[in-house]
Each structure stands twice: as C-alpha cells, then as structure tokens.
C-alpha cells in the first residue's frame, strides 16, 4: 500500500483513575487538592488513539507519528517515561497547566498552534487523532476545535476502528446511540478522528522502543514552549463532590431463592 500518513495524536494527562479527588478553590479558580502530586497517567482515550496511530503508522511504512501533549513539564516527563516504552513517537510537549477546570478553547488554540508549527507537516496527509473525551474535563470538544482551527472538515468522534484502503480512502466506525456503530467512508486525509476505545490492547513495554524514544524525548521536554490558557469568560460558581451517601442494607443470610423472589418483585415494581 503506497498511502502514507502524518499522524498527530493530541493527548492529555489526567490523575490516575484510582486516586480520590477533592476539589479546592484557589486564587485562579477551582482545581484539585494536591493536584501536582497526584499520580498521573496518559488519558485513557488518548492512549487508545496513540496505540491505534502507532499501529496504523507501522502498517503504512513512511508514515510519521507525533504526540502533542500539554501539561506541566514535570508531569509530562513522569507520564512519558511509561508511554515511551510502548510505541515509537516524536513528542511535542507544551508546558502549561492541566486539569478539568481549564477552558477547552484555550487548550485547543495552544494545541493547534503547536501542530501548525510542526516542521515538515504536510496537511494533505494529516490525520489528527485524540480521545473523543477525556478523564479530566471530559467535554469532548478539544479535538473538534483543533480540527476547525486547522481547517479540517472531515471529523469523526467515538471512533473504534479505521480501515485504510489502497487508494488512501478509509472506512471508519463511530459510536452512535444504542450500542451501534455508524459506518462511513472518507476520501482520505486530512481528517480528525476522536477515538473511543479502539480495537487494540495496550502494547507491552518494549525496552528498545523506550531507548529510541528517550533520545528525542528529553531534549524535546527541555525545549517545551510555555503556554498560558485564557479563561474565555468561564466563571465557576460552585465546584463540589457529590454528597450522596446511601444507607445500605446488607443481606448476608438470605437464600438464593429468597433473594431471587425479592429481586423479581423489585424489578417489576414501578
């Protein structure tokens, strides 16, 4: 297959899902308590996008893969140490604030500027990948906004699969309501694909890939451009944890028959 792509993956970093989160309000608005020391991971959907991008690039020799990520340098370094072991990429770090309460429009502007400035980027071969949502802000709009800023009008969200054809066109499966996929064909790049879970398992750590990534990763981090994110008129009135605490009835001694009868009555009740 002669098709080659230039794939740019936008990926944020988020608190490890197993951490307890507590919102606090500071002088710059809401944030998370001890945010800078919370263990961080690459956003799960963005990670799916990265693995799918690496898989696609490997299938189409001559393709190139960049990972563009915005976050505090120290956090980026921590997360990239793990991710760099999995797939080959060129990191484009942007040194800026993270968190669910930052404005997506400002984030998108910083990402789009960084992508537009990539040396050697051929926009006619560009596939812009990322997560369809994130585990922090979770608005599902950043990638769309980046795509619009880059003038890309073929966009797909909730993507689980892409099949590239000989002529460079591709079929794409997007999640829609009711547990179904919408199937579309696109003439080819440029396009935006916001990934859901994808079809691939997390790649195993590969020390050779890690060594190769490290050669470019640390210098890139040192040269990360700073970005400040404007609020765009966003003002928080209140941020809080859900207070709902239920009084749980724990049944330890009921027989399966009794439990079944109770459940059937419960299922049938309005």
């Amino acid at each position: 297959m002669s098709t080659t792509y230039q794939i740019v993956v936008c990926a944020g970093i988020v608190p490890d899902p197993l951490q307890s989160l507590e919102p606090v309000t500071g002088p710059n608005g809401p944030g998370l308590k001890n945010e800078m020391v919370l263990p961080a991971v690459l956003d799960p959907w963005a990670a799916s996008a990265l693995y799918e991008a690496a898989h696609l690039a490997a299938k189409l020799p001559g393709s190139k893969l960049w990972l563009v990520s915005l976050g505090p340098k120290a956090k980026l370094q921590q997360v990239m140490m793990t991710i760099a072991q999995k797939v080959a990429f060129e990191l484009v770090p942007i040194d800026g604030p993270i968190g669910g309460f930052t404005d997506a429009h400002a984030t998108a502007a910083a990402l789009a500027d960084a992508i537009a400035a990539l040396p050697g980027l051929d926009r006619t071969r560009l596939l812009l990948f990322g997560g369809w949502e994130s585990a922090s802000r979770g608005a599902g709009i950043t990638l769309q906004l980046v795509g619009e800023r880059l003038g890309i009008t073929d966009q797909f969200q909730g993507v689980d699969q892409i099949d590239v054809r000989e002529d460079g066109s591709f079929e794409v499966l997007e999640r829609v309501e009711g547990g179904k996929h919408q199937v579309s064909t696109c003439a080819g790049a440029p396009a935006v694909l916001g990934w859901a879970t994808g079809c691939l398992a997390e790649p195993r750590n590969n020390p050779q890939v890690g060594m190769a990534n490290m050669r470019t990763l640390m210098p890139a981090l040192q040269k990360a451009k700073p970005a400040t994110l404007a609020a765009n008129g966003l003002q928080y009135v209140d941020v809080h944890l859900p207070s709902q605490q239920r009084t749980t009835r724990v049944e330890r001694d009921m027989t399966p028959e009794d439990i079944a009868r109770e459940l059937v009555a419960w299922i049938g009740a309005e």
Partner: protein
Amino acid sequence: MKPILVLTHADESGSALTKASLEAVTAGKDLAQQLSAPLVIGVIAVHAVAAASALAATEARILSVTGEAFAQARYASDAAACEALCRAADSALVLAPGSSRFARIAAGVAHRLGGVIDTHITALGGSSTVEATRWFYRQRVEGVFHREASPWFLLLEPGTQTAFTGTPGTVQVESVAVELPAPRTYVTGVRAASQGQQTIRPDAKLLLVAGAGWTKKQPDGQVHATEAGQLILGFLGNSGASLGSSKSLVDQGGEGQPVLPFLTHMNQIGQTGSTPRHAKGLSTCCHGEEPHVVGWRFIGDRRAISLDPNCGWTRGKADVVYIADAFQVIAKVNELLSVNKP
C-alpha cells in the same frame, strides 16, 4: 434581548424529531420564559415540515435546513447546516441535544461563529444570568458555571430533561439555505457492535452490570464462562434490561482469558466507559472501587450481588447488597421471570 436558539434534528425516519431534541426544546422553552427572551427552534431533517409539526405548541419561530443531504449524520454537512441556522437566528445562547450527531459538530460550529461551548450539561439555573451544571473528572466532581462570551452553546445531556409534548399541528417553517462543500464523507450504514442479541438498551428501566467475577473460577475450581453467558443473556431476555460491564471483564478478550462473547467495549461503564441513566441497576460479580461507582452515578435504585461482604458496595453506594453467589441467584431469578413473562 437576543433569542434563544434550540437546535434539533430528526431521527432515522427523517420526519420526526429525536427524543433528545424534544428534551432540548423543553429546556429552551423554560429558559426563554425565565429570561423573557424569544424562542427560535432550528430543525435539521429530510422532511422538516413533518418533523416540525411536533413543535406547533411551542409557538416558537421555526427555522429549518432540509433535504436529502441532511439524511446523513456527518461533520461537513451537519456543521454547515447548524452554522446557517445559528447565523439566521442571531442568538447569544444556543441549546442542543448532546446526541452523537450534534456532539460531533457543535464545537466546530461554535468556533465558526466565534463563540464558546460547554457540553454534558445536566441542569440550567440562575436568575439574571444562565448557570450551567455539569460533571468533571468523569462524573466525580460536579460544577456550576457561567460564561460571559457569546454565542454560548450548551449541549444538554440526554435524559436530563423532560421531552416536550404538545399537540402536533401545522407550523410555519422558514427554510434556510446552506451552501455545502463537495462531500468527501459518505455514511454507508449502521452496524451493531456485537453479533446476535442487542444488549445495550438505553431506554430500559434496568441496567444489569456484569463484573469480572462471572469468568473467574467458581467454588468447584472451574471456570463457567458459557453458563455465565447463558445466565446473563437469559436475564436480559426475561427482564428487558440493558447490559453494562466492568472494564476488567471487557478487557479479558484481549488478554486471552475466558470471555462473554456478546460483550464489547460499548458495554463498558465507569471511569473509562459510559455513565448510563436507568431507573434501576443490579450489579453482579463486581467490586465497588471508585472507577466502577462512577458508572453508577446516574442510576436511581441500586442493588448488588457479591460474594464479598467487605465489597465497596457496602460503603453507602448501593441500596441493597446481597452476599450470595450470582450464578445461583440469577438462575433462580430467570426461572421466576420466565414463568411471569407475559
């Protein structure tokens, strides 16, 4: 005062608005009344006049983009349609359903109009200004906020509003012209994520959540994945429930472990899955760690079956926890449900 615009779209028939669209209409009507602002409703449909008939009782100004090109839910045509409707309405506040169709394009449209957007809105409040509520960090932190910038697009989470119902009638629909770019994307169909029985039913009253325990070794030292699958499918068939799953159970397919063949990542709920809205939820073979609890945030009445008396569910997250073997309980439930099935 500038009008409030509600964007809506038709279902696959092309001539009826989706339920989520009608929910947005309710929100728009309420907000227009609260702010004493005019209401404009934009309709995207192949047969817009037919679709708009459901809006007769709103007494709103109706704009439409219509034609075969808008039968397909794709970015280029839908974004152009919404952009045209927004420019025609000249609104500072735009409400729209958070359907897959509008979630794909709304941010792009907001950008084209120099506006801002917020999504997954679960409530609208405020008195003199509009305050929106949504969840952050995957339904773990709730926030209320407002924006100074305009136009402000708000995508409403489906299931959070009452769908508008009014006597259908003939309405005057103003057609808005759209100049479409040459199409590069074609929708070729819709495909079920898994073969066989459809297990995801957004309108079901009950959600059954299957955890990884279903495919673990049972008291006889053996794995009973086939039996587990039959029990779960039997329960779904008898109860009409929708099926959710923990990430660990879905992931097993990629790790060479026993799997339930009808499960896909689209069944996954929780931190990295969906957060469905059902009146009731029954969790089976599933522990109660935080990522799972997130998936239950919007389930009203919650029960769980677990062998572990110290399961996280006992810590105030479920209403009832049965300490029992889910294989035995669900088998008995299926017996009873099949007898009572109409």
